[in-house]
Every structure is written in C-alpha cells, then in structure tokens.
C-alpha cells in the first residue's frame, strides 16, 4: 500500500536527513566556556517497521526483579483518570497503569520512535489524505481483572472524554472528531452512553476507525496521549473513576490516599509479549507526596533506608546544585538532561509595535546572567531559537547574535537614543520575582526603562493569555505535547487563533506571510514537514521578533543508589519509569 511504502522510504530518509541535519550538537555554553552536557541529537520517527510495535520490550541490562521504587513529589498527582491526565507527573505515571493506542519508544538518549501500543502499528492513513485513520488492535490484551481489551473499550474511553465533567485533559481527539472546540455540545456523552461520537467507529472488535472532516496528520502523535486509553464501560464511575482507574498496564493502583500516597502493584494480567515499551521489574511503585524540593533532594542525597530506591521528582533545587555537582558519587545518580520546555520573553506586539525595539531587546539580553540567577547550567540552558533543541528537525540559529552576555552597544545602536518604557508582568512567587529583577537590571543597561508589575502567581498565565492584557513583556513557557514543530509554532504564532481569552499566541502576532507558511507546511506529508519547521522558526524571529528566546529547562533529578533504569523522557522532560528496576 502506498502509505506504508512511503512511510518506510521516508522513514529511512528521515533517519538520514535528521541525523545529518541535527548532527551539530547544540551545546550549552556559559561564560566560563565549559559544557555541563550536550543536548542530545533528538531523532524521532514514526515506526515504519511493524516489528517495532511488537513486544516484548528489550531487556534492560542488569535489571533485576523485585523491590519498591519510591517517587517523592511535593504536590499530589492531579488526575489518574486517563482522559484527564495532562500534567507531567500524571503523564509519566500513566504508562504504569495504562496503555494507549500508540506510544513513544524512548532510549533515554534522544532516540524516539512512535510505535503502536495497543495497536499493531502507529496508524494507517487509509486514503493518504490524513482524514481517515485505521488501527488494528492487538490480540491478548486484558484489563487487571482479566476482561479483554478490544476496540470497543478503547472507543468507549475516547467517547467518555467528551464528558464535560472530566476536565483538565488534552482535547485533540475530541475537537478533531467533532470538528469544533465546543465538542461537548456537538456530542453529548451523558445522553449517548451506548453510542460513539461522530467519526469514531469500531467495524469489529479488532478495528478502530477515525474519520475527520479536516486532515489531521498528527493523529498518531495525539493517539499517544492517555485519551486513547481503554476503559471498561461497566466500571465507569464518572468523576469517581479518577480515584482508581482500571489498569491495562503492568501495574495496578492498589492504594490512593490523596495528598499522601499512591501505591501501584504488579498487574498479573499484563502480557509483556504484547508491549513494546514497558517492563515489570519492581514489585511496587509508591508515590509519596508532601516534601518540598529541598526536603526531597536532601533525603535522596542522604540515601538512607528505603530512600535508596527513591527518586526526587521535583529535581535538585538551585540551592543544592553546588553540593551535587561537587560530589562525583552524587553525580553518578543524577539524571541530567535538557527538556522540551522552552522559556521565552514574550513581547506583546500589540503594544510594542516597533520592530527595531523588539530586535533591540533581543540584542540586549544577557542569557548568561539569567542562567546564573536561575541557578546555573543544571537548571537552565540558554537558547536562541523558538523551538527547543530536541524538536524533530531542529536547526540551531541565532537571528540576533549577541554573545552570552548580550550586546548592549548593538542594542543601543538599534534604539538610536530612545528609552522605551516597558512594563514587565511577573509572577509574585520567588522565582518570578528573581527573574524579573534580573531582566530589569539587564535591559536597563541598554536604555530601556522597565517597570516590574507583580501578578499573583496562580493567575499570571490566565491573565497574560487575555488579548487585552495591559503588559508589554512577560516570561512564557511552552512544552509541546509531541516533539514536532506543528505542536509549537502554529499554536504560538498563528494570528488567526487570537480571541478574547485563553490565547496561546500571547505575542498576538498575525502575519499573513507566516500564516500562509503554516498552512503550506501543515498540508505536507508528516515526514516532509519536519525540516520545514526550522526554516519557519528562523523566519518568524527575523521578520517578526515576537519574543526573546531565553532558555530551556534542564531536568536535574537525583535518585537513590539502588534505583536503576531511570531516564529523562525525551518527550516530556521528566523522569520516566518504564525501564525502572531496583538493584538487589
């Protein structure tokens, strides 16, 4: 079939082009000139070989069975119910008790492959137009109680995600199937529990079909999110399902005390032969909630008793970084990796209308000083691009080369004697305040007059997303749901999505040329798109300068001496547990 051959051929092509395109390691540099780590060349591909989607997953070297992995986190996991899972902790927890249509095979070093999880392949583009997708479900899949998993259970799982009571999760599948962001009114789940939403069909127990009005070539990626997890209809308890969802993964939830502890134990009905990614080495996973990042890091550093097989989820705080960095023994049990979470100083182009001023901001910025203020290279890695390194097809460029400490003279030159007065909206928590102080002192050297306006931390995001927000500058962060430019650039810079509220395009740029480019690229085959996004990235920065790219979050997580197989997910930048084991 044409699509398969195309995928196979392009898959090979991708491997070649992506490895040559990204072969320049994007290195983090600092004023002292040494590198703490190199950002891995992230190659990602949709698996062409069906063998990739088959289990069992490759054995982890030296892994042994038994033991308990403890994960220490400050706040509880917001949701366990698969369609409501969206925070990083919830997303890394979900693969333990849940399987999805597709999933990422991640080697922890930058190699990502999208494979079929419950499905035999990442998805068949039936007519080649990305409007009709078909999945064949594997045999031998069971829930924790032995009930079989068929296409009906997966379809039910997707159908119940239309329930407006089940808030907080991603809405891709719902919006694409119903064709509108108001999916809950387009199809009422509660009134139609026995039927399926429009476009979703199950011709037989082994087949699942998506039919979209518009082309969505990213469906394989979206299907990797937990919305596609199977749910048995007779066990669906609505909002209460969140406390103890039925497991389809290697572990099941045995104890859930909100805010205190979450315990997962082995699920005997998980068949490793069907699973290309997961393992079942430890007997138990225990999430412990409450300790703040300092306390968690301190106890894992101390490595006493059960903490020897623990991992501090919240990462090593800036205050303890120096201690960990100075000790080689601690270094050995630190997971250090850049994440896909990119931070930028967004410029409200409705207010800062002069391109030269925006360019001057880009020249004035002292990224090195900012990284120091945040806690150094193990906390933040400076970046000059809008897409984070690690995005498929990434290409490093610097539209406004200013050196690590900024080029104040060049900035002044661009301003030509002007002293623009800008208001920086900053969160009133301690890190927001520190960053704001740093930025203010930095930019004022170039002649800007910066007023820092404090916004209550919990509402800052909502406020800056409003079209008529009163500020000129604010620090924004974005982590794409899958590492493709399509999940970053059009979302953040397409002016046609601007509305009164809830804008991800918080620069409020609307350029016809750029919008046209987005349309053009999105119409291409997924494999052709990859290299195009990098070009658009540079185009946006050069023509519009809607933001000042600042830094990428670096994951710096410490674990106990007996915890093995942990790595930082290349998709979400958080510790992943699919290969975890306890050293005996």
């Amino acid at each position: 079939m044409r699509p398969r051959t195309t995928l196979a051929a392009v898959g090979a092509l991708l491997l070649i082009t992506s490895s040559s395109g990204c072969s320049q390691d994007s290195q983090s540099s600092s004023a002292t000139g040494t590198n703490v780590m190199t950002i891995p060349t992230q190659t990602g591909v949709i698996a062409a070989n069906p063998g990739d989607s088959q289990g069992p997953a490759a054995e982890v070297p030296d892994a042994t069975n038994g033991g308990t992995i403890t994960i220490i986190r400050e706040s509880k996991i917001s949701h366990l119910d698969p369609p409501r899972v969206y925070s990083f902790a919830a997303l890394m927890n979900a693969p333990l008790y849940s399987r999805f249509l597709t999933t990422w095979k991640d080697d922890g070093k930058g190699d990502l492959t999208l494979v079929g999880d419950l499905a035999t392949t990442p998805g068949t583009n039936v007519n080649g137009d990305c409007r009709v997708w078909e999945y064949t479900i594997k045999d031998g899949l069971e829930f924790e109680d032995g009930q079989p998993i068929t296409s009906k259970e997966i379809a039910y799982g997707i159908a119940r995600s239309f329930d407006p009571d089940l808030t907080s999760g991603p809405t891709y599948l719902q919006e694409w199937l119903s064709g509108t962001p108001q999916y809950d009114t387009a199809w009422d789940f509660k009134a139609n529990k026995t039927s399926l939403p429009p476009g979703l069909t199950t011709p037989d127990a082994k087949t699942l079909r998506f039919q979209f009005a518009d082309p969505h070539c990213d469906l394989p990626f979206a299907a990797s999110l937990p919305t596609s997890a199977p749910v048995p209809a007779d066990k669906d308890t609505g909002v209460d399902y969140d406390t103890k969802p039925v497991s389809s993964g290697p572990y099941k939830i045995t104890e859930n005390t909100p805010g205190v502890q979450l315990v997962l134990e082995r699920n005997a009905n998980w068949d490793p032969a069907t699973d290309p990614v997961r393992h079942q080495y430890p007997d138990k996973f225990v999430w412990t909630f409450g300790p703040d990042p300092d306390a968690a890091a301190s106890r894992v550093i101390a490595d006493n008793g059960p903490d020897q097989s623990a991992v501090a989820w919240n990462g090593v705080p800036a205050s303890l970084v120096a201690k960990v960095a100075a000790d080689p023994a601690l270094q050995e049990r630190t997971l250090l990796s850049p994440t896909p979470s990119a931070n930028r100083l967004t410029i409200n182009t409705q207010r800062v209308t002069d391109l030269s001023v925006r360019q001057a901001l880009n020249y004035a910025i002292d990224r090195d000083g900012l990284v120091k203020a945040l806690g150094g290279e193990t906390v933040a890695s400076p970046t000059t691009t809008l897409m984070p390194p690690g995005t498929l097809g990434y290409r490093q460029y610097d539209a406004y080369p200013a050196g690590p400490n900024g080029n104040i003279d060049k900035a002044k030159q661009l301003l030509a004697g002007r002293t623009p007065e800008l208001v920086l909206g900053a969160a009133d928590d301690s890190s927001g305040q520190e960053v704001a102080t740093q930025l203010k002192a930095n930019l004022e050297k170039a002649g800007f007059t910066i007023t820092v306006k404090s916004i209550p931390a919990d509402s800052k995001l909502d406020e800056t997303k409003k079209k008529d927000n009163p500020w000129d500058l604010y620090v924004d962060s974005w982590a794409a749901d899958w590492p493709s430019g399509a999940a970053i650039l059009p979302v953040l810079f397409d002016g046609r999505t601007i509305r009164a509220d809830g804008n991800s395009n918080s620069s409020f740029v609307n350029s016809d040329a750029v919008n046209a480019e987005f349309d053009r690229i999105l119409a291409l085959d997924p494999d052709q798109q990859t290299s195009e996004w990098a070009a658009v990235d540079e185009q946006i920065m050069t023509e519009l300068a809607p933001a000042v790219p600042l830094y990428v979050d670096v994951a710096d997580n410490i674990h106990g001496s007996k915890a093995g197989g942990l790595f930082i997910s290349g998709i979400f930048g958080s510790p992943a547990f699919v290969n975890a084991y306890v050293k005996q």
Partner: protein
Amino acid sequence: MGRFLLKRSFSALLTLLAVSVLTFLMFFVLPRDPVTGMCPKNCNPERLERVRQELGLSDPKVEQYLGYIKGIFVGRDLSSAQGGYCDAPCLGYSYVNNEPVSATITRVLPVTISIVVPAAILWLSLGIGLGMVSAVHRGTWLDRAAIGFALTGASLQLYFVGGVLLLAFTYHWGIAPVPHYTPFLDNPVDWAGGLVLAWVALALLFSAIYARLSRAQMLETLSEDFIRTARAKGVPRSQVYGRHALRAAITPLVTIAGLDIGAALGGTVITEITFGLQGLGRTAVDAVRSGDLPTIMATVLVAAFFIVTANLVVDLLYAAIDPRVRLK
C-alpha cells in the same frame, strides 16, 4: 450559670457565622479562578463557562453562600461533576482536589491535632517546669539560665529551627526519620517518630513563652500573704510550692494555654510547610492559592470552631472560678 452558658454559646455561634460570611467575601478578592486553572494549555472559554455553570459558580454570591450553609446543616444536591448528593454536614466539593471537602478535612485534621496536642503537652511541661524552677531559685544562675533559654527560644524563628533540626537529625545524622504522618492507631511508634522533630521545634519556641509566664505568675503568687503564712506555720517547702503556690499560679496559665492550643489547632501553617506535613494549615494555604473556595471555607470554619470553643471553655472556667464574671 446556665444563662451565662447560653449567652456565651449564642455569641460563639454568631462569631462562627460572621467568620463564614467574611471568608465567603474573601472569595471576591481571590486571585485565582479555579475553573480556568483546570486547563493549563488549551483553554476554551465557552466550555469553561459551561463548567462554571455546572459548579454553580455563576450563581449570585448570596445564593452560593446560603447553599453552602444549608449544606452544612441538612446536606444538599450537588451537580454530577461534584459527586451528586452530599450528606450533612456537607462541606462542599473541591474541584481542585476532586473529592468531597469533608473527606479532605477528615484526612488532614488528625495530622494537625497530632502535631499540636503532644507538642502542647511538651511545651507546657517544659515551660511551666522551667518557670517554676526559675521562680523558686530566683536570682541564682539557674534562674538566669532558664530565662536565657526561654528568651532564646522565644527569639528564634520556627522555619529556621525546623530547617536546622531537619538538616542535623534527619539528613546528616539520620537519627530522626523523615517527617511524615502515620495514624496513631496504625503504628504509634512510627506516628511519634514521624512527628518528633515538629514537636521539638514547637516546644523550643513556645515553652519560652510559658516559662516567662509561669515564672512571673509564680513570683506573684509567692509574694502573697498566704504563702508567707504557710511558711511561718512551718509547712515544708515542697508543700508550700507544690500544693499552695502551684495551684494558685496554674489557673491563669491553663486558661491561656487553652486559648493558645485552640488557636494552634486552627492552623500550624509554618510548621506544616517546614516539615512537609499535610495538615489543616497547609491544606488551607494550598486552597487559597488555587482558589478552592469550598476547602477554604471548611478549613477556616474548622479552625474558627476550635478557637471559639477554646474561648468558650476558658470563659466557663473563669466564670466557675470568679463569680464576679458571671454577674456582669
């Protein structure tokens, strides 16, 4: 006495009502709208508005308040998103924690009680003991040492003491277990081990207050005539101090202690944050930060209840001891 009790109880109830109204008004100034917090990335305003309606957040404020109060006494109907019907006492449904608020309170209240009550016993014994010793040996180095210790404790900052204790005993020497809460009935030893550092920190700080208090009170009592008479009569010193002086000195101390404990039960926020324990205070702070009004209301009402009850008990004690109070 009965009339007095009735009057004070009625006043206490009014106080609680006032507290509930003020807390509800606080909602107007809260920075965070919890509903928008439910969609970190792809927020759809129209859909959120529907969620808001479902949760009853678009109703007039007075209606929301009355509904809440009614729920406390007779239970109320909540939308399906909040778990359907909610039995009395219904403290609402937390759309942030995704559980009925009464479940939250049932879980976090024992933690706060477990922190405060043993700590109170510790600080009272230590404080009063120190104060007595200091008063009896007035002017000697013992007195000065005790007062010095008391003043040092009173001048320390709780989060500072907590941080140092944790560093020394938990992380560095590994003597004390990492602070956590285990219900007393499950494992008393573990319960104590997980909370001991919090008790010590609180005791260090608060015993100071009671040391000074009891010292002053004891000195006061010791200068009374009846003590002089007892000494003149040849009553042994231990009896003078133990039976006569201590009893007279203790009464005001106990009443003050009662009020302090009542207030402490209302929310040991800093202790809980410093030691990472999920008690009433910590829950309240998290609720305020995320705009979770039902949880805020519940935690504030529970805390106020403790304070008001403690006040009532103290007033009753005073009335029982001092008849003048009753006649007013």
